[in-house]
């Protein structure tokens, strides 16, 4: 069997807006990836544990509630303390530009804001997942 990109898609925190994440999950599946979808209301601990057990190459986190500056860093820290910082962390949602810069410094690989074509996300994941 061939190697497939595995990606975890999750909604950290309490935000219930899942239109975007569902569209992206479906697009990634249609691009041939295995998408582990864990749904709404996930704690950073649950997300990191799932990413480890599922041995994903990347994760896509969607936050529209404004809690990104608390949740992303927590997830990055947990990945580090589990020696799993090789997992590519990407995200999307309602996130102001200055926060995006801050998050990138912390180790978030990419943030896809509103209006990003799914093709761009697919391309990014394909190019940035380490083989």
């Amino acid at each position, binding site marked *: 069997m061939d190697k497939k990109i595995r990606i975890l898609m999750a909604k950290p925190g309490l935000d219930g807006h899942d239109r975007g994440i569902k569209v992206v999950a479906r697009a990634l599946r249609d691009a041939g990836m*295995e998408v582990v979808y864990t749904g709404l209301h996930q704690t950073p601990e649950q997300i990191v544990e799932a990413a480890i057990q599922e041995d994903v190459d990347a994760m896509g986190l969607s936050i529209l509630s404004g809690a990104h500056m608390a949740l992303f860093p927590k997830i990055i820290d947990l990945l580090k303390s589990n020696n799993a910082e090789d997992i590519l962390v990407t995200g999307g949602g309602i996130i102001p530009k200055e926060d995006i810069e801050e998050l990138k410094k912390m180790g978030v690989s990419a943030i896809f804001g509103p209006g990003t074509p799914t093709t761009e996300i697919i391309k990014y994941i394909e190019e940035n997942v380490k083989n």
Partner: protein
Amino acid sequence: MSDSAELVKRLLKGDRRAAAKLITLVENDNNGQSAKIMHLLHPHTKKAYIVGVTGAPGSGKSTLTDRLTHELRTKEKTVGVIAVDPTSPFTGGALLGDRIRMKESCTDKGVFIRSMGTRGSLGGLSRATNNAIRILDAFGKDFILVETVGAGQSEVDIVNSAYTSIVILVPGMGDDIQAIKAGILEIGDIFVVNKADRDGADRTVMELEMMLELNPKKNVWRPPIIKTIASRGEGVEELLSCIEKHRSYLESNNLLEKRQDCRNESELMDVLSYRINKYLLDDLKQSGSYTDLLKKICEQKIDIYTAADEILKILWKKS
């Protein structure tokens, strides 16, 4: 990429990241990785008890698996879960959503959950799943629950290779009769009528009972039918005690060994045919005589059976 021997060492020390990475390796099975891993793991397996859980989409199997996991955890058993979801035949991708219903178990260190896509190649799924089961077995899980929709032969094979197979039905979903037609009846050691608070639960139980009466395979073990409401955890304790009963039935009648033998034989056959395909036929396809024969068939100079005979001759000569 980490060396598989190193990963096996880490796995045996209880490193869950190593377990996860090993499953990925056997799933992808590049360069005969699986063979090497299985060779190293072999002495550490055959300890876990394997339970298959199958049911149509919407029957609540993930919820039931989750509840069963909880129940096992209260009895201080460790649990591995393998959840299989279909891969799209058109794109090769898959949406694996079983974890949604397993949020609580997710951070429990005594539980390891892995989602797998059915992927493409023939027999590949059962091979990958069986190997993943062995990995979790060597990882030290007491129980391994394998969850699939049970559609298609390879998924039926997976459930069939469990020691105890649970088949889930739901009242009024219209899939009960279909499921029976699909041959699920034969593989069920325990039947669960989930969402039993719905209308028609008793009727489904009755229909099942009648079907089981008609089943020509007269066993000493008569599959029990249990009503559950998985979302509230009702009936799950009873389900677990049925699993235990089935287990002691198998053990006291030397049937567990027999199931293991069957399992081993079918796996051996599977690996053999896979290898024959892969090594012999792949080699052959590269060779000139194969292309020549194919050309002759196209030109109507030779029939297919004669060509096959020719090929077999070549292969025998080789070996």
